[in-house]
């Protein structure tokens, strides 16, 4: 169980980092999304893995799974959802305005180059 979760998080993170290092915005944003999946799983697993255990107090329960990371994951998911949506819109606008979806910024692009000496 631990082994499966750990290697899954590792593989998802590796995929995310690979995509993040691509030169164009679309793969980069996909990489961010994949990376947040990995992080959500990671946050979740930091409450220790427990199978078939209740998260709320019950009289007949002997052991519990930690409810706090679940609440944290929920917050993290909402935040990453919002930021991803923003990143997509921003990347799209940058692409439409400049006609190019490279991540690099070239200095003096907006510099009034026609005015240069």
């Amino acid at each position, binding site marked *: 169980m631990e082994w499966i979760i750990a290697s899954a998080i590792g593989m998802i993170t590796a995929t995310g980092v690979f995509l993040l290092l691509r030169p164009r915005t679309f793969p980069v944003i996909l990489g961010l999304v994949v990376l947040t999946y990995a*992080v959500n799983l990671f946050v979740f697993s*930091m409450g220790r893995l427990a199978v078939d255990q209740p998260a709320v107090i019950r009289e007949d329960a002997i052991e519990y799974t930690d409810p706090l990371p679940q609440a944290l994951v929920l917050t993290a998911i909402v935040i990453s959802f919002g930021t991803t949506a923003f990143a997509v819109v921003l990347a799209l606008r940058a692409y439409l305005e400049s006609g190019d979806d490279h*991540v690099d910024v070239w200095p003096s692009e907006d*510099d009034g180059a026609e005015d240069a000496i």
Partner: protein
Amino acid sequence: MNHWLILPILIPAVTAPLLMITARFDMLLSRVFCVGANVAQVIVALILVQALSVSGPDTYDLGGWVAPYGIELTADLWTAMFLLLAAVLGVVVSIAAMDGEDERGRYFHALFLFQMMGINGAFLTGDLFNLFVFFEVMLLASYGLMVHGGGTGRLRAGVQFVVINLVGSTLFLIGVSLVYGACGSLNLQDVAARAAAIPLGNQNAMLTGIALMIGVFAVKSAVVPFHVWLPATYREGPPIVTALFSVTSKVGVYAILRLGLALEMWDVESPFHVIAWWMMPLALATSIIGGLGALGSKRLGEMAGYAVIASMGTILIGVAVATREALVAAHYYLLHSTLAGAGLFLIVALVQENRGQARDAIRPAAWKRRSGLIGSGYFCAAVAMVGLPPLSGFIGKILLLSSLSDSPWWLWSWSVVLGTSLLMLVGMTRSGIIVFWSSESTEASPRRGPRGVLTLVAVGCLAAILIAMTISAAAFLQFLDQAIGHLLKLAS
């Protein structure tokens, strides 16, 4: 349990949505509410400074849940000082924005207030996950503000800014969850207590988590090698907004100190001491890179960005030593450099507004409207930023250098601080000469009288504060000494 503590978060949190709902199309109403909310924050911050200097550190349990089960806000005089700094800058920048920057895109005022909410929340919170949430509030607002007004270069730089900060948030989350996994708590005081109880040799998860979080704070405060996002952002972003960002980057320093001192990172015996050890070399590198960058910039905004990096290095040199004297000096310099940096960015805004096609490029070009006031403003801001007498930057640097004299790093830090000042002096003189003096070679004579009167007023306000800091330096230092005493939990 002082109810004033929650107000710096509540005021912008209530005003901003209200603005979005009711005042979207009414510029006058938006401006009044935005400036009004910022003035209210200054008043609240002043009340907090007064109250906390009498009562000492205070906490506020949200919803009545006692920490560590609930989330608590913690504040001492040191926190109140940062709240006051942010609020004062908020007022000044929101006045400057009324010159027309706020009309270039919608929701400027709401975003501005959300940014203030995030900054204030990050200062006040005593819970690590809550700190993450407030960082996100601050960052989301700053994404919107950074691309405010649009334009190709700005949007492309915005993509980089957003991506780097999103990766930072991801690492922050990993760090927070590692800390939770290692010690089972998120309340800062509780984490510190439990971290001390973790047996030696089992500290690795905790150490990794803390290191990741400090790394993210270093990204925020543009410490080398995490500074790469800053020059492009400050070059392309709207200068009015980057003026506000000069306090956002101080949130990183604040969080480093808050977390580091709670965990006693500067104690040689501490398992986290390795992080504190790295701070000094990185601070020195930050100063040098900032100075060199200021020397080689092609745009005034970029140069101001590198000047902010250099001043951040100087602040961190004091933070890395973390004796009481060094921290007092570093905070005096922090207050000064935040205000001076904001002033420099406001000058960049004026230059962009009043120069022709070339905007703020550092090359000879024609001016559309001329005014000696802009040039004089640049001169004052440059003197302040470099740290020349008579302004307060000089006092800050002298204090810092003298507080370092018995540190093992004194030779390094002295030569780096002084060398960086020289580099910045050369860089800023060069840009000033090119932008303000080599620009007369135009056939059409420029009109007199600058655009952006309110921005000039804002620069004047900042200059007045800097002069007040210089004249009553003793009173400021006494106040800072008390604040740092709260921070270090000494009896004061």
